[in-house]
């Protein structure tokens, strides 16, 4: 480990409270000066990892496209526990590759590069889960070109809860553009519009929509459903199936009842659109929207 790597990792691992004395923007600036970028930042190296002996590469068999704060890390690890799935240490669950092509060319070379991020052992399938993809309007078209047969997973959560958790998680970055920061967290909850965009490029049968609340209540049944959707034996049981409740450790602002009413108004039309596209959606898990 070089001193640059050690310093950059140290910056990455600082407690959120550190922003009080060392603001997040300055930390990011310093990290970039050290040549370290997060996967969703411009400047990150998109070169695929080296292929190991016996591995093949190709388009992902499945791609989780959303959503942040809905337990996607937990669910991805349950999926990855299946012996029919290839994952490799050092390759992140969220490749974020397609995030980088809003303004760049995306041709055969980039498609091949994307495929290079998916090594797999013979007889297994592999994929990724980049939870911001659904909220990035340019991604669906690129994904349809790079992985037209991929099965897409969309794990949702009550949009009001997701919004509150998203805001709490990123509160240290809100300084320079408060409204834009809040708008970003809110926009990520317009699932109907996001799914609508995806369905312009993929048939509905290629998309599995899950609900966080349902996965927490009955992970065994929901995981079996997920395995079946991916064409895997659904009898597999990971040793630890319960949720990793990391959100509970964060301080989440209490929502003002009036603000919640306003949020219901903001999201109601979109939830209705979503329910029309996903007949299996169970709105009883999202009580604010249960009355349609």
């Amino acid at each position: 480990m070089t001193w640059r790597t050690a310093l950059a990792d140290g910056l990455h691992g600082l407690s959120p409270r550190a922003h009080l004395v060392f603001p997040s923007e300055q930390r990011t600036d310093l990290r970039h000066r050290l040549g370290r970028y997060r996967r969703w930042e411009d400047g990150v190296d998109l070169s695929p990892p080296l292929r190991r002996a016996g591995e093949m590469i190709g388009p992902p068999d499945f791609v989780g496209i959303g959503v942040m704060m809905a337990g996607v890390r937990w669910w991805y690890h349950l999926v990855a526990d299946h012996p029919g799935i290839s994952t490799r240490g050092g390759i992140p669950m969220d490749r974020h590759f397609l995030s980088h092509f809003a303004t760049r060319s995306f041709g055969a070379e980039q498609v091949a590069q994307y495929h290079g991020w998916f090594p797999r052992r013979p007889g297994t399938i592999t994929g990724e889960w980049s939870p911001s993809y659904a909220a990035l309007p340019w991604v669906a078209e690129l994904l349809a070109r790079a992985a037209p047969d991929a099965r897409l997973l969309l794990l949702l959560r009550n949009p009001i809860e997701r919004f509150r958790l998203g805001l709490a998680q990123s509160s240290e970055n809100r300084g320079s553009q408060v409204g834009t920061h809040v708008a970003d967290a809110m926009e990520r909850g317009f699932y109907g519009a996001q799914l609508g965009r995806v369905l312009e490029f993929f048939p509905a049968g290629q998309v599995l929509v899950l609900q966080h609340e349902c996965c927490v209540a009955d992970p065994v049944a929901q995981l079996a459903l997920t395995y079946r959707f991916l064409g895997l034996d659904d009898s597999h049981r990971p040793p630890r199936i319960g949720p990793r409740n990391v959100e509970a450790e964060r301080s989440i602002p209490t929502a003002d009842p009036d603000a919640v009413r306003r949020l219901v108004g903001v999201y109601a039309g979109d939830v209705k659109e979503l329910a029309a596209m996903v007949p299996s959606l169970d709105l009883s898990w999202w009580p604010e929207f249960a009355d349609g």
Partner: protein
Amino acid sequence: MRPPSAARAAFRRLSPRTRSALLHRIGRFAPWEDGFDFTPPALGAGESAGAPDFVGIGVQKGGTSWWYELIADHPGVTSRTDIHKERHYLSRFGIEPFGDTEVETYHGWFPRRAGTITGEWTPDYLGYPWVAGLLARAAPGAKLLVILRDPVERFRSGLSFRLSLGAFATEATLADAVRQGFYAKCLRRFLDYFPMEQFLVLQYERCAVDPAHELDATYRFLGLPEHRPDHLSRPINVSGEKVAIKQDAIQRLTDLYAPDVEDLLALFPHIDTSLWPNFGTSPA
């Protein structure tokens, strides 16, 4: 007290992030930044406060500073130089309570002399999903102004602007810049709360070509008599180095916006897409 010009020049040479950090250290914040004091300004002699008569709600990089200055030049409009054209007051209420006290505070930001009208232009409002409902509550009679621009050009200009101010090039920055170009989708949120006759939708390209005609239309919309400012054609904040967008990405962005532009034309048939280089003619 104003600092000496050499100090101001040196300050301008600092990076945007360093400038911001220094200003924050001395307690100076812009209305869009966390830390800004939203206590309304003191009323001047003969001034009264109240709901804004007009609110510009969009769009960023649509020439709104230029257009606001032209409106403010009218003798029938009060515009105090110590109050930013972008109040941004409603930007903060995504999840915070918004009641009578907040409405009153908002009104406090609109001092005006007797017999004049006043307002603001916060171009970010259009893209903030929660603002329409709050504005309808705080200023239901306000006339709403929007200047639109070819959405792909707006994206390029908006992204360049954000980056020039020190924003990091992340997927969130890109997504924000893309989303602001879905004009019809954003305007529909306001149309849920305000009648069509309360909107004036202008095009940046048309304002640039024929500012006198478009300004006359703007004054009429605001109920003001004719007036001709000394300097008419002076776009502000529309230059600067632009982000490079590859040709195939421009085509993808154009395709991405096309259905929204079509919807926009259904809402506002007077929009002339032949003025928008990436759309040329109606996508319909």
